């Protein structure tokens, strides 16, 4: 069932239009929209794992790996190319994801979450303390890369980065939606509902979860690279546990039922943060916390769930 509902078509059209029109009218929002799309890509990975009922409280590890792949390339090998970065970062994250995944998919629920947390905190401590390689808490500045070998002035680069991120976000969300609707995706959901039954059907639950885990690591690495290029810096905070919490937060905010939720959640999160930081610089975290509590208490299926409910009652009338 890869067909899209009308609601989704409308949402996708709105998302594409907004990503192109908003930066054209408000140039200062260009980077913001890029960040929304890049974080949405990371959150797609969280949504994959949530299908299986597993919460990774350490996914910032892959985000950080992607970010530092770009940063190390720039530091040790000279300024690279954007197209190179968006290949290398996900590859590094995927390789580590496969390695770590082999261990973590043996565990479920709280143990799964904690082991992920532990791995990500190991990476964070290394990034923070191996000062000679990573510049510690100051992070590594990342120079503006070329795109396909061509250097661009900052404004043009901003827009090109935005369009490339938009294209990647679209491809990623279609691919993830296809994956979730495929038999493999349904097996992932079966881990949440009844893992024993899955095993009785002759399917290895570990293998199913491992595939999902590796895909989510890939997406984390890709998003990390894009955020780093957009913000021109990678810091250890990218791999800290609060970052992992933020990604899970965005997933719940948007709704975990499908890929669209990732971007809806990321848009809400970043826009609230952007506006609150401008108007109430001291209280943006407070505001986001309250928003999260309200969503959990009154709209547990997230923003997309709210929209669906709205569309359904519209249709009845």
């Amino acid at each position, binding site marked *: 069932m890869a067909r899209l509902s009308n609601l989704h078509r409308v949402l996708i059209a709105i998302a594409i239009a907004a990503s192109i029109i908003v930066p054209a009218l408000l140039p200062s929002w260009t980077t913001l929209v890029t960040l929304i799309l890049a974080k949405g890509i990371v959150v797609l990975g969280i949504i994959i794992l*949530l299908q299986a*009922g597993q*919460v990774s*409280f350490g996914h910032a590890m892959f985000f950080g790996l992607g970010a530092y792949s770009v940063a190390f390339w720039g530091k040790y090998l000279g300024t690279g190319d954007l197209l190179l970065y968006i290949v290398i970062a996900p590859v590094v994250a995927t390789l580590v994801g496969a390695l770590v995944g082999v*261990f973590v998919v*043996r*565990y479920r*629920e*709280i*143990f799964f*979450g*904690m*082991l992920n*947390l*532990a*791995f990500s*905190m*190991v990476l964070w*401590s*290394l990034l*923070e*303390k*191996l*000062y000679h390689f990573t510049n510690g808490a100051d992070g590594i500045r990342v120079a503006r890369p070329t795109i396909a070998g061509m250097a661009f002035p900052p404004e043009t680069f901003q827009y090109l980065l935005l369009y490339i991120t938009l294209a990647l976000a679209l491809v990623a969300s279609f691919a993830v939606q296809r994956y979730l609707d495929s038999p493999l995706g349904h097996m992932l959901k079966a881990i949440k509902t009844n893992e024993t039954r899955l095993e009785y059907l002759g399917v290895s639950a570990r293998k199913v979860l491992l595939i999902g885990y590796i895909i989510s690591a890939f997406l984390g690495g890709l998003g990390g690279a894009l955020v780093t290029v957009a913000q021109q810096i990678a810091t250890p905070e990218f791999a800290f*546990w*609060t970052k992992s*919490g933020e990604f*899970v*937060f965005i997933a*719940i905010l948007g709704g975990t039922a499908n890929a669209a939720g990732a971007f809806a959640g990321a848009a809400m999160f970043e826009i609230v943060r952007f506006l609150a930081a401008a108007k109430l610089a*001291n*209280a*943006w*975290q*407070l505001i*986001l*916390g*309250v928003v*999260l*509590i309200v969503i*959990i*208490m009154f709209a*547990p299926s997230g923003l997309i769930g709210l929209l669906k409910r709205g569309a359904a009652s519209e249709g009845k009338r």
Partner: protein
Amino acid sequence: MDSTIAILAILDGLSYAALVFLVSVGLSLIFGVLRVVNVAHGSLYAYGAYMAATISLLVAPISPWLTFPALLIAALIIGVFVGGLLETFLLRPVYGREEVLQLLITFAVFMIMDNLQRLIWGVQPIFAAEPVRLLPNVSLLGVTYTSYQVILLPLVALGTLIGLRYFLRHTLSGAVILAVTEDREAATAIGINARNVFLITFIIGATLAALGGALASPTTSLVPGMGTDMIVLSFAVAATAGLGQIEGAAVTALMIGLARAFVIYIQPELEVLVPYLIMVIVLLVRPMGLFGVNKVRKI
């Protein structure tokens, strides 16, 4: 490594372990009973510390000795009021909902408390070292150390361990808590009010976190982010010991505290890495933790 440094490392580790134990045993207790990982636990630690410093600075001019009861009062205020409000208004509505939603509620509380902390107490470091100065220093094999850190803190931790054990195993309220932990449905069926048990357990856990913070406040400068660091550390201890293990948390806190202290003297860059590395290794080998029994008994 000469013996002076070794003794110094042991004493460092001991006083550090005492604080970490108080915080992580609270986390462990809450998880054992409520099945919720309280991400805001580190914030309760930080609030305990800030509240203690605030009250201490207030009462110190009257008599410096009043700063000792101030530490306890601060822990009780934060634990009972903040902890009680959190459980009643935020956790209670989400019991029985998906695990990720319960976790995220406490994450939201963490974000709010972290922000409020900056608004209330600012971002400048706060010092309130009165209690450490009042108690004499002690010398052990040529090493001088504050008796607050090497005698008082470990004594409080030990008292907490014995007290908790006695409370859970030898009093009616403790038996009720254990009953709810073992089988909530059966406990409710024989007339136990699970709702009260959850509230009381959360308050005890929150008070222990706040007490850890209050006792830490004279030994360190209070800065934003102290709670953020403490929460992962206490996770590491609680998970390594096995969630819900009280005696295990004590042993693990001591182990991680000592390991960290020795690493500081040998290879300081790796200090932060140690607890997480231990956690990864232990969880890979024994996911239920060092002292965890496979779901036989949780606390």
